[in-house]
């Protein structure tokens, strides 16, 4: 049974009042005395040798305080997995959004003018926009020096192939040969974007040798080490503070421009603020969602049993590696899906291209791969004449089944999510013409990371949680008081949270990988338990009872079975205030990765086993306008197995938002590229998000049991899973009316073309 904390009162988030009154401050709202305004000079070509940069006219413009290029910063190569880039362009520019220089000036207008005065001479080079072309023999090398790059030794690289992973299990050739039917198909997903409504902004200010950077980042500690590494300074001298963050979805994960702005501020000897335009937000940051080519082949028996899956995947890295090298292995797992497949061969590649680099965006690789796989599953079902839901029913993983890497899945409710979703949508009932149901199943791991937190109780009995975690809107940090309150028998409203400041809180991986509740929640619980023990020690004295006989309920420490015998926590806190501090620390050691067998697999970067995976099924009802190919999603049912659901309002909100994002990916969101890799629609009129008038009602239900290997009391990933199965479900509905569309987004023109065939 799903454990959903319904019994609580609706929990009002601590940052809520600021946000609804317009008093909350986001990074672009901040101003510092003497602040200058920054602007970047970007590359004029998607691929070129840089022969000469002349900043003299820009520097001479009155009002300009600093103009920087790579010559003005330490010559450091960096990168999370592969050290393939520098802060500014050096020798070669590899995509249209590469930063060649940065300007800080007294007004934004002067900074903008100065940028135009920077002269750059190039030798243009052929630009590759197609990842398959990049892997073809004879393709120009996008990183000529790739062999000399340092980084993670486990990344398997070769020229334009930035990361190669394979998954091998059983004997796929033999199984395909003996299958009753083999279905082979190709699917292509376009580049897409996170599109947080807040374009990023950064403010940097020095005091002596120390710099404070206010930045719209999801990962303050990653940003801190990025500044420290590239500017060659101690991490202790870098303070990263995140004001309110206007959404991230992965687009604001990773180290981006904090060091550029810090360097400008140091050179100018004044604080500097950089605010991105929406166009810059599309083109420059290296965290957009990668395009994928999926060639999928499935061997199946007539009774519906899948016996083999073979796949070749090519993922589009863009110009720099970023955090994408682990994608091929993760995409390979997604290409197998939440199903029993005894024989597997997946060959996955990550190709450099001369386009905006890709990086983790909400459930990286999964929406695209799930879309391709789920449309393919319906095609396989069609081939053997089986209803697509029944086909999934016969193959979906159940407790005790193993994955493609022989990890045994235990506390899972994938099958239950399938049954609930189809029941919720009323699958099988008769529909008007041109309407159809579509179903898709997906899965998504939780990522174990170290994390830390402190919990303090003050002399008046109120509490503070100090954490390095980052709140990008999901409510995961806002919900931490629920955990502390549960342990201490107090009310969540009694706790404030100090967060997203690298000087205040211990290290945390940030708002990424659906990890906050699992890892930082665990740390908060441990810290609260530490305080609990201190309270019990004090109470033992006062009540003259053994701690084993005591409980913390409703703000009191009291004797079990004798509730009138007790002492208020406030009294204990007052007592302690003059004497010892009530301060707890917790780190919550990350759980070990589940066992698996990856002999025969290459390019292993941690996605071979899935910690406490979430399983989800989306069922949709769509209407296709046959004459135009325009699709409307009329109804969505989402059933998610996320173990214990800590904060239902927050969790439901994540699913509703993820589904809307998934509908956008399915129908209207995608970057169009020129032949040389420039984005043709880097603005919201033609990169279309779903509006309130487009998104239908979304019904959400939680299934499954608390997973003991997961987060506090069995909570699994919530934030990323919701955008994963939606494109697949929509695609399967479209297929029933118009035919299968093998390109994502399934735009009206593409749907219409499918009907012409």
């Amino acid at each position, binding site marked *: 049974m799903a454990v959903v904390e319904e019994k609580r009162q609706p929990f009002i988030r601590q940052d809520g009042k600021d946000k609804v009154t*317009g008093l909350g401050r986001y990074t672009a*709202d901040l101003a510092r005395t003497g602040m200058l305004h920054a602007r970047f000079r970007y590359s004029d070509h998607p691929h070129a040798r840089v022969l000469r940069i002349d900043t003299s006219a820009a520097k001479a413009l009155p009002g300009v305080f600093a103009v920087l290029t790579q010559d003005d910063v330490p010559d450091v190569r960096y990168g999370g997995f592969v050290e393939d880039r520098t802060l500014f362009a050096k020798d070669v520019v590899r995509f249209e959004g590469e930063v060649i220089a940065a300007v800080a000036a007294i007004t934004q207008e002067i900074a903008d003018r100065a940028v135009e005065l920077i002269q750059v001479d190039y030798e243009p080079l052929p630009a590759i926009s197609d990842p398959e072309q990049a892997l073809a023999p004879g393709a120009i090398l996008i990183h000529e020096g790739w062999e000399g790059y340092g980084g993670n030794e486990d990344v398997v690289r070769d020229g334009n192939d930035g990361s190669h992973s394979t998954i091998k299990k059983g004997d796929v050739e033999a199984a395909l040969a003996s299958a009753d039917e083999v279905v082979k198909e190709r699917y292509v997903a376009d580049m897409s974007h996170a599109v947080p409504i807040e374009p990023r902004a950064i403010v940097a200010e020095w005091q002596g040798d120390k710099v404070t950077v206010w930045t719209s980042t999801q990962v303050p500690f990653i940003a801190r080490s990025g500044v420290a590494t590239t500017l060659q300074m101690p991490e202790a001298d870098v303070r990263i503070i995140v004001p309110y963050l206007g959404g991230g979805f992965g687009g604001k994960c990773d180290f981006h421009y904090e060091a550029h702005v810090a360097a400008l501020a140091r050179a100018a000897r004044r604080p500097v603020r950089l605010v991105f335009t929406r166009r810059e937000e599309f083109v420059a940051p290296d965290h957009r969602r990668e395009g994928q080519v999926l060639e999928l082949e499935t061997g199946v028996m007539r009774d519906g049993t899948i016996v083999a899956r073979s796949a070749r995947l090519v993922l589009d890295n863009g110009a720099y590696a970023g955090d994408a090298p682990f994608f091929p292995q993760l995409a390979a797992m997604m290409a197998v899906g939440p199903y029993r497949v005894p024989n597997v061969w997946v060959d996955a590649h990550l190709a450099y291209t001369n386009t905006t680099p890709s990086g983790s965006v909400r459930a990286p690789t999964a929406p695209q791969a799930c879309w391709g796989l789920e449309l393919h599953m319906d095609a396989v079902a069609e081939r053997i004449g089986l209803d697509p839901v029944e086909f999934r029913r016969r193959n979906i993983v159940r407790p005790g089944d193993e994955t493609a890497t022989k990890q045994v899945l235990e506390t899972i409710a994938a099958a239950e999510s399938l049954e609930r979703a189809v029941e919720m949508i009323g699958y099988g009932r008769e529909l008007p013409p041109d309407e159809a149901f579509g179903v898709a199943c997906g899965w998504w791991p939780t990522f174990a990371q170290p994390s830390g937190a402190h919990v303090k109780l003050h002399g008046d009995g109120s509490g503070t949680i100090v954490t390095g975690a980052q709140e990008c*809107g999901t409510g995961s940090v806002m919900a931490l008081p629920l955990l502390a309150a549960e342990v201490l028998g107090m009310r969540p409203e009694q706790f404030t949270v100090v967060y997203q400041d690298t000087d205040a809180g211990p290290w945390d991986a940030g708002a990424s990988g659906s990890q906050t509740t699992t890892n930082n929640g665990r740390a908060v619980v441990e810290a609260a338990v530490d305080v609990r023990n201190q309270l019990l020690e004090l109470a033992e004295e006062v009540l003259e009872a053994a701690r084993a006989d005591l409980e913390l309920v409703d703000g009191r420490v009291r004797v079990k079975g004798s509730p009138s015998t007790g002492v208020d926590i406030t009294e204990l806190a007052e007592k302690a205030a003059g004497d010892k501090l009530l301060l707890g620390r917790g780190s919550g050691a990350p759980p070990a990765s589940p066992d698996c067998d990856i002999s025969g697999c290459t390019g292993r970067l941690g996605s071979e086993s899935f910690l406490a995976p979430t399983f989800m099924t989306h069922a949709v009802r769509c209407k296709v306008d046959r004459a135009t190919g325009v699709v409307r999603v009329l109804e969505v049912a989402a059933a998610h197995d996320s173990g214990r659901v800590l904060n239902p309002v927050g969790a439901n909100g994540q699913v509703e938002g993820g589904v809307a994002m998934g509908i956008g990916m399915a129908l209207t969101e995608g970057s169009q590229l020129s032949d040389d890799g420039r984005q043709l629609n880097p603005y919201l009129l033609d990169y279309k998000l779903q509006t309130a008038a487009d998104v239908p009602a979304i019904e959400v239900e939680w299934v499954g049991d608390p997973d003991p290997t997961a987060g506090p009391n069995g909570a699994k990933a919530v934030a990323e899973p919701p955008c994963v199965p939606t494109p697949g479900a929509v695609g399967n509905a479209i297929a029933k009316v118009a035919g299968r569309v093998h390109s994502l987004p399934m735009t009206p023109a593409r749907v219409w073309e499918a009907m012409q065939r």
Partner: protein
Amino acid sequence: MRYDAILNVNGTDFPVEIEPHRSLLSVVRTELGMPGSKEGCDDSECGACMMLLDGEPVNSCSFLALQAQGRTITTVEGLAGNGELHPLQRQFLAQGGVQCGFCTPGMLISAKALLDRNPDPGEDEIRIALSGNLCRCTGYQGIVRAVQAAAQEMAGA
């Protein structure tokens, strides 16, 4: 050249001296020191900058500040009266209508314009009235619920 003007925002007259090309959004955020309204895009497509001009919604990023003279301007900072949250603000919080909060000021403004014009809107009417405000976090459902709850609360009062 700069022009003197008086901008009436949330009931207060502000004297300003501004150049003709300055947008209402930029002047309110900078000279008037009220950054509650946000800038989210380059092409008047996101609605994060929404303000009320004589009670009707306007994308302030694309409206010249000087043209707002003689009109009443309402921003999110003006919704709460006497320290009391407006029912819309209260319900946005109670119904899960706020996550990252960046679209929230504009959403509240559009919702207020709707309820001032029609105190009992149907769901589709609410969705169309809010369709000029993009939200990436909530999928709109919590926001629609909030507007419905606020309408009920305001009708009952």
